[in-house]
């Protein structure tokens, strides 16, 4: 497999650190997100490239201008998840924190982790939580049938009729719903995906 371009090798660490000095709070960010210096530097470049007016933060519009997101059925929801609690500005730490969810899980790191520390952002549960909140629009901790239907509508093509969609939504909720409240809680969500290799499915190699 190719190494991604700009994958910071050891030889580049030196010039990376001087560059990284421009990044605010770089050390605490590294600790929090687990990103390497080189990754942070690359992400910072990206952040600045997205922020085309140089205002120091990103707005929704900045992200919406990424063309490929407009054809991603979940694009807008994902953009929204970068702006928690209705905020309008996304600063660099916030940007990196969201992306840190998609860092591959490093088993060694996992083994050495101090159990008292909070779970790293890229843990299985946090990855799942990220996906879960894309469904759970009203933030009540549950995916209702209605929310499931909305997500389905986004992800399914025109050819499927509303009745089919509804029956799919019903079955999906039913399948995961264990306590019979007609909605999928986060635990039920995680349980329904327990056989899936989330660590791998929700990781991007280049975000090492």
């Amino acid at each position, binding site marked *: 497999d190719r190494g991604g371009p700009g994958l910071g090798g050891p030889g580049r660490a030196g010039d990376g650190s001087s560059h990284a000095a421009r990044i605010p709070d770089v050390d605490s960010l590294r600790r929090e997100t687990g990103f390497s210096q080189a990754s942070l530097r690359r992400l910072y470049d990206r952040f600045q490239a997205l922020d085309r007016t140089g205002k120091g933060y990103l707005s929704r519009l900045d992200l919406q201008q990424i063309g490929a997101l407009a054809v*991603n059925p979940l694009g807008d929801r994902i953009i929204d998840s970068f702006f928690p609690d209705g905020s309008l500005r996304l600063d660099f730490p916030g940007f990196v924190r969201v992306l840190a969810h998609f860092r591959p899980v490093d088993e060694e790191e996992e083994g050495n982790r101090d159990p008292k520390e909070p779970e790293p952002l890229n843990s299985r549960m946090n990855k799942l939580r990220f996906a879960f909140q894309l469904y759970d629009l009203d933030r009540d901790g549950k995916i209702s049938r209605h929310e499931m239907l909305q997500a389905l509508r986004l992800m399914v093509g025109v050819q499927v009729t509303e009745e089919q969609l509804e029956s799919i939504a019903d079955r999906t909720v039913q399948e995961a719903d264990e306590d019979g409240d007609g909605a999928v809680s986060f635990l039920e969500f995680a349980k329904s995906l327990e056989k899936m290799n989330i660590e*791998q499915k929700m990781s991007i190699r280049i975000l090492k």
Partner: protein
Amino acid sequence: MSGRWAPGPRWGVLLALLLALGELPRARGVEEEPGGAHGEAQGFQVVTFEWHHVQDPYIIALWILVASLAKIGFHLSHKVTSVVPESALLIVLGLVLGGIVLAADHIASFSLTPTVFFFYLLPPIVLDAGYFMPNRLFFGNLGTILLYAVIGTVWNAATTGLSLYGVFLSGLMGDLNIGLLDFLLFGSLIAAVDPVAVLAVFEEVHVNEVLFIIVFGESLLNDAVTVVLYNVFESFVTLGGDKVTGVDCVKGIVSFFVVSLGGTLVGIVFAFLLSLVTRFTKHVRIIEPGFVFVLSYLSYLTSEMLSLSAILAITFCGICCQKYVKANISEQSATTVRYTMKMLASGAETIIFMFLGISAVDPLIWKWNTAFVLLTLLFISVYRAIGVVLQTWILNRYRMVQLEIIDQVVMSYGGLRGAVAYALVVLLDENKVKEKNLFVSTTIIVIFFTVIFQGLTIKPLVQWLKVKRSEQRDPKLNEKLHGRAFDHILSAIEDISGQIGHNYLRDKWSNFDRKFLSKILMRRSAQKSRDRILNVFHELNLKDAISYVAEGERRGSLAFIRSPSTDNMVNVDFSTPRPSTVEASVSYLLRENVSAVRLDMQSLEQRRQSIRDAEDMITHHTLQQYLYKPRQEYKHLYSRHGLTADEDEKQDTEIFHRTMRKRLESFKSAKLGINPHKKAAKLLKRERAQKRRNSSIPNGKLPMVSSLQDFTIKEKDLELSDTEEAPNYDDEMSGGIEFLANIGQDTATDSPSGIDNPAFSLEESPGILSGVPPWLCPGEAVVPSQRARLQIPHSPGNFHRLAPFRLSGKSVDSFLLADGPEEQPHAAPPESTHM
């Protein structure tokens, strides 16, 4: 399958064989002389018996029959085949048959000759592997595969050869007429993992696809290395050890690059030719599948002629042509190609293994040397394991999907040797390689050991080690849905983080492909506008008819068609081929749309069998078919089941319009109040479109339909049913998606009614008409692309109008709509999709 079918009475053999198959123990007793046929000719004979006349083809046909019958026999007992791999059974069968032949004939009459193997048996298998190669998986792991194939094979060859030589020097093997170069030659032919054996065993084991593609890809690509090493050492042996100079070694290395790159190039050239030819086979549909086989076979022979790597040539021919050929040839031809290829490959494989068994029963080739045989077995296993571990250690620094210890064990253990090694060793010249028979017998032992013993034990091993298996069960609904969501999330995050490293080359390639290759190689059926529309229309009608029948079968009668009550019809939507019991029938062939990687036909079958719950099946298949595919999955070059570019673009357009509409709505409600002025919306939209045009092209992940735009306006007369849309369309499009902002008020004269997904019900006309996302268009006005029009029959709404006989309740609506635009039955409130 032998070149040794010397003329002469082989009657005893044949009869013995046939009788033995009939389980008659008296096989030997029934020998007869074929005297009758060749008795003194006395005048005209009404019936003559001409055995010699048909002997060779007859025997070939009989062997094929025997092998095929054996396959049936194996599968009578499911228990046996689930434990013992078929290849092992075939070898054992071959041994038994060989024994019978030997007993009957007293000499070994049949054996697998290199000519037959390399010219007739190997090509179908490799072509099949290439043509159905999951390209994305293959190219995604190409680096890994190449490392194992090149470095791994050289490592295996060198270490095995040298170690054997070392032991030989120690005197453990006794007295052998053998030198260092002979050992290295032997090492080079025994080093290569064999594609036939690997395929045969791994297809039954179902390890996860990454592991599979690595082992399998390695076995395919190491051919070049094997060929070169083999040729180099063979010529060195011929030269004699003391005459080999440094120049020869350099030549050897150069020849590796020539052989491998040359073979690949030949394959690509022929793939190009093949794709080009299939572009013009519209009127000779019946021989269309033939081109695929003939041209790829020619690629094999050509590269053999040029002494390049033939396996690489035909592999890459298959890999490169698959996309274009699948798009060009008709569906029936595609099915024919698929089945013929599988049949040939599986037949060839059967015969190879059976004849490996038969060939082994020949007292003339056996020369035993315990130390040599056992040490060979030991060395190839140990050095394979060491090689795998070392290389994986390097690779894992660069791979996201780490190859774990367990994977490495399976990779080491899965290094099966097979018929290629056998054919190569038989090719050796006895005069130059004095110990040829020792090599032959050792190779046979190695093959039998790896195929039978490792083949038998790899399944339990995989289970015991809990290797990640490929998914055989249908995933749960939640897994499928959320899994798709994950894919979308990942590609969005990749876009946001701007880390397109992994996709960069692929993007470059697909741009090139779109701009040049597809234009040249793909049939521009779009040009034949009218015919094409009618064709598609006809096809859709056919599918509908099939769906009717299937639905009738499901319900037990066709009465529902005549029944006037509409509640009956609620679930019958014929605008799409309905996944239902029809699954197992004709329409299954018409629309195989399994997007997951299916590595063999068996898994397809199993999958179908495993589905029981009809309702679940419908739901699963609806999802399977209509869930939007994330970029990663659809924008690649491979597609085993031919997802054409059209679908991608249609999908992009759909999603794009949906997204834009939503954004405008939220913008509207946030900034402009509930009822925005048209002008404001227009301005906003223009501004955005402008920005988009400027900003998003560098991201360049969206397909462009430029190839089809050129001849759009001129052909207005070709429009089938959407003539009334044209004026509206132009007006609307001058404002672009401003239209979207006014959705609430807009009567949308032709928004189709068959679409029930409210997310779409109001914005269909731009969705249908603009094949290109607006920001990619050169001007303000989006020209309706030809392809967009071609999609009309696919779009359920328009299709309803085209299909007056549709009986569902919705079709009535669509007629109303077409005639009287004031009705808008599906004016779903925008909030329904508001987030």
